[in-house]
């Protein structure tokens, strides 16, 4: 949020450095504290302290989808208090209790005793198992809510810095209408990003697409793409694909995203996350619908083919 100005400014130096690095090598470095899964297709990196997803790369095309580690986010959830609805739990404020590579294909992550913005520490545990098998990255997560609060929503997985393959490459989101493969709705998300929510109720331009209407979502670049979706079409609750452009646009007249890594000292980045509206009652455990992700080469036809 804009109020976190110190935090944002502290990021800028890192961003400039990482931007310079990226300009030279394409992918940011992996530190010793990182935990990595990779195969021939994908490489995904998690920060061992925060559990944030900090890098994601298509190894075949070298599209670095998640680029700047400092913009990585682990998760976010909302647990309203009886006397105050605004009570998010921000992954950026949590320390993971476990980020462990179980095998070459699997990482376990866990966050416990979540520190909420206005409700103190909440007796909740979010556990995730991330697997990478034959280029398919799967996120399975479980929330143990031992608090007296209802958890309305969880954003997971959470990509804090979704990038186009190249600065000049447009990105488009394609989703189905009523799960009909022949009926696609396509919208640009880069370099133009039009806000689709009421400006009064958002800080940053925002788009959401309903998972129930499209069990997968294609993020398409010129000749490659990323498919993300659910494995089980009978998901028990509502979900959304969410795109959020930070810090905003050059102008509402042209809806252009700033073409640099930062504008006036503020990072420019596109967030992408899957929002699960779980409404987890107090003292319950909820298994989140598994989310799968894989990259593909070719146009959106290739993306659909992979879903079959």
């Amino acid at each position, binding site marked *: 949020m804009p*109020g976190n100005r110190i935090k944002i400014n502290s990021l800028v130096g890192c961003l400039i450095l990482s931007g310079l690095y990226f300009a030279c090598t394409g992918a940011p470095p992996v530190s010793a504290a990182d935990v990595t899964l990779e195969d021939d297709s994908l490489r995904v990196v998690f920060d061992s302290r925060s559990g944030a997803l900090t890098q994601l790369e298509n190894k075949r095309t070298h599209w670095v989808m998640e680029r700047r580690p400092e913009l990585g986010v682990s998760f976010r959830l909302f647990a309203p208090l009886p006397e105050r609805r*605004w009570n998010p739990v921000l992954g950026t404020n949590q320390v993971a209790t476990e980020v462990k590579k179980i095998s070459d294909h699997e990482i376990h992550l866990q966050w416990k005793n979540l520190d909420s913005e206005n409700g103190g520490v909440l007796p909740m545990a979010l556990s995730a198992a991330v697997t990478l098998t034959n280029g398919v990255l799967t996120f399975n997560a479980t929330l143990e809510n031992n608090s007296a609060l209802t958890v*309305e929503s969880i954003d997971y997985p959470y990509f804090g810095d979704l990038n186009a393959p190249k600065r000049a490459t447009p990105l488009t989101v394609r989703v189905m209408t009523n799960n009909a493969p022949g009926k696609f709705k396509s919208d640009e998300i880069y370099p133009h990003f039009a806000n689709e*929510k009421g*400006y009064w109720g958002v800080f940053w331009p925002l788009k959401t697409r309903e998972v129930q209407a499209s069990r997968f979502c294609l993020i398409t670049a010129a000749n490659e793409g990323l498919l993300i979706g659910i494995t089980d079409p009978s998901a028990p609750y509502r979900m959304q694909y969410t795109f959020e452009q930070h810090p905003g646009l050059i*102008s509402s*007249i042209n809806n*252009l995203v700033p073409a640099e890594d930062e*504008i*006036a000292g503020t990072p420019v980045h596109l967030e992408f996350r899957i929002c699960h509206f779980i409404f987890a009652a107090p003292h319950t455990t909820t298994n989140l619908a598994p989310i799968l992700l894989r990259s593909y080469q070719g146009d959106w036809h290739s993306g659909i083919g992979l879903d079959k």
Partner: protein
Amino acid sequence: MKKHFLFAMGALAALVFFAAQVSAVASEVVLQDDKLSVAFDGDSGALTRLENKSTHWVIERRPELGVSFQLNALLPNHRNNVVRGQKQHAAEMVKVSGQEVRLQWKDLVSDQGEVLPMTLTALVTLTNGVLTFATTLENDSSLMVGSIDYPYFGDLNETSNGMPLVARYMWYGDLKSADIASAYAVESKQSLFCLIQSTNEGLYVAMHDATQPYLLRFAFNQRGPTKTETNPRHEEFRLSHVAYVHPHSTAKLAPIVLQSYVGDWHAGVDIYKKWRATWFKPAHLATWIQDVNSWQQLQIDSPEQDFRVAYTNLLAYGEECASNGVGAIQLVGWNHWGQDGGDPAQDIEPGLGTWQELRDAITQIQSRGVKIILFAKLNWADLTMPWYTNELYKYECVDPDGKRYEQGGYQYFTPTQLAGIGVHRRAVMDFQDPAYRDVATREFEKILALGSAGWLWDEVCHHASVYYNFAANHGYTPPGYLYGGDLPLGAQLRAAADKKDPDFLFSGEGPEDWLLQYFPCSYFRINTGSTPVCRYLDPQAPLMVAVTGFDDREMLNLILLDRYIISYEPYNFKGHLTDYPLTLAYGKKIDALRRQYKSYLWDATFRDTLGANVTSAGNFRYSVFMTATGKRAVVVINLDFSQAITAKVELPASGKLVMATPEQPDAQPTTGRLQIPPRSAAVVMEQ
């Protein structure tokens, strides 16, 4: 038989038309002057022909498609019961004078064959090209008449160039444009006039009653699916007075005025402007809002109870404004339950601090030369609040079946609200109800008590989907037209403010033109396609436009072009001014330029594109200002994001010209040939 008759008549009419000798037949009654000619059928009273004599635009062409009127006499349970003019014979049709015809229809026959004791009388006058329809309905029946469509043009035609007609009307600081080929209706709740605009001529059609007595619809309908003789395709245009004339009562309908003009929308709006001057009473304005000034909009809380900026932290924002020359803060979400929560209550939000803390913050900020303008809404009652359950339900609007109307509420911040879950829906309050107007006034007085320099009534421009309230016991015989309550409530609130401070500023979100009499400072949003009709109508009105982008030269250039006030709104009005320094810096340059050349860019008369010619191969816009001494200025903006343009400015009979820009404000001589970088503006001034 009737079809054959129509065909024959159609063929005859076509022959006459193609011979360009459309003349009045014996049974017609014709009014004409050197500008217009209008004919009525002697039997039915239908308007059968209308022509602009100077341009030869035959606006109403085929007599057989002429219609006199239509009304809807509602049966019990509000079922429709149509009375069509085609089934009536005029009881009287008298040419009272060379300029006036009186028409009357009596004992009207409905579609159901029932004869209704009603009399519709129309006085049609033509004076200097101005055609006026003054209509009265005597309803001696036991039925309520829901609507009367009069005058009724059964065959609205394009001009001779065959270009499509568009409807232009005022709404939200803009002159909207709508294709009339599809069914469309302009409504008097937004605009008192509708321009039927062709390429270079048009027809001004207006409701000449600015008090909002009832809803008038300027309704367009395409009829006839095919181009057959029996059912020819044609465009209908009718003025539908949704007047709800009670049983055994007489209603005088609002005058309808038509006038043709040559030119684009400026010529049509000029006609409105002339009439507007006869009734519009400009509001008193404090000095500060009349000078070059800019605002910041700042939201500090929402119904999701984020409580982002405590009252005690507001001073930092005020100081930031003061140090950047920003003269006012529109403070949003200061009231209980934040923006769009808890309406219409105007109490403070305990989650942000105390009443005294807010009062002190306002005082401290204003002492630094930055005005506080408190945002509020009085239109709705939050259904989640006990106040609604206990009291406000009494003032809510209901439909003909007695069911509550609702406004859907607005979504804020959390995924659940943004997905439409848990949104605060609202009942729609009845402004025609004097008791509710008193409730609203008491809430407004809470704003006055806080000592701010003004307020901004957000959504002052509408009542959601509600037009009429059908509830009983609201202080009048239902139904009541909600928009008719806007002016009385505006007057009541203004009176309350005047007791405390006549300089207290009333501002609103896109108030309709007549509401500007009480809400003279209008806030709205624009794009490159917006038409600055409010600025054209009133060159000095305080009109304000939002700037949200992080390097928003595009919006700022449009603001310079149309002399709008800047409203800085970083992070969709949730940030600090300094969150977007590039935008702030350019905005300051624009305001500095306007201060330096105030007589040209601020105090002058805005002429939009009239009075100069600007040409360029690039993507540009321009506007013309005329100073009090007759000197002209032309603002040219380059809308292209990456390409510079060359523009040639031509001012007829101009004196010596100089040029300045926001970045190079010192005037330099120019021939009028300008090089304008991408995303930039230049001003040419006549010395």
